């Protein structure tokens, strides 16, 4: 019982997460760390409705997320997936002191100022910097849509070295 996945996904709560991640990992809780969603009742209600009732969802602003991530790590009663929409936000959590051994980039689509880094994954410069920093701090980072699909190590692609 712990934090079973830290996932970067620009769709946040959707089928790949609910079915593709929660089921194989037996996760029963999502911790959605996102400024926009935390402040938007409509988005929160749509994401809540997207998940089956047995999956609990907590929304938190990244500014106040550190203790919630730690609580998820220590929670003996739940298996939690941490979600951020971009690498920059996940990087902020790590910089703030969140202990994450492994981060999965599950979905990063084309958008403003993005570059395709590897097949179907698009990152901004800020995202790439955040990921390199995370890797430098010893966090293992990979590209993987869902558990069970092929894993692509992000470090060599990003030209990053683990410390």
């Amino acid at each position, binding site marked *: 019982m712990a934090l079973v996945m830290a996932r970067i996904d*620009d*769709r*946040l*709560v*959707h*089928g790949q997460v*609910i079915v593709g991640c929660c089921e194989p990992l037996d996760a029963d809780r999502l911790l959605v760390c996102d400024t926009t969603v935390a402040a938007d009742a*409509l*988005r929160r209600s*749509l*994401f809540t*409705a*997207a*998940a089956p009732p047995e999956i609990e969802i907590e929304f938190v602003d990244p500014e106040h997320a550190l203790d919630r991530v730690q609580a998820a790590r220590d929670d003996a009663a739940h298996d939690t997936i941490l979600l951020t*929409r971009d690498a920059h936000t996940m990087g902020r959590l790590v910089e703030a002191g969140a202990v994450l051994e492994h981060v999965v980039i599950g*979905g*990063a*689509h*084309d*958008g403003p100022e993005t570059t395709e880094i590897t097949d179907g994954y698009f990152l901004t410069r800020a995202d790439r910097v955040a990921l390199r920093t995370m890797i430098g701090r010893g966090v293992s980072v990979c590209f993987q849509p869902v558990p069970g699909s092929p894993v692509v190590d992000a470090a060599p692609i990003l030209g990053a070295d683990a410390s």
Partner: protein
Amino acid sequence: MRALLITHGDLGRSMLDGARRIYAVDAPIEIVSNDEHGLESLSAHVEAWLSRDDGDALMMVDVGGGSCGVAARLAAADRPRTWVLGGANLPMVLTYLSHHGQLGAEDLVAKMLDRAHNAIAVLDATPSR
């Protein structure tokens, strides 16, 4: 009433292609895939489609709780006379093609749901012998 079919991958294109092979008629229906779209990007795409016309608008999504459904509902949140239907299947699309010009929005939606629901059934089951 114009329609937008929002699906994962090529499902929408294939479904519309299949439906048009059964009922070949021009209809104001467009498709969009969630491929290559994050949530906000897909929602913006749908919002642009909605803003092209003030009239009744219908969106069909494959999975209501997926990014297609969430994006459609986000885009439709403040727009009147907009319907978002989940569980899009071929009978639903066929019913749209065959009745979109004949029925008002409420009746068309009711018929589409009825046909879509009724298509999901155990057609045959062989008992153990």
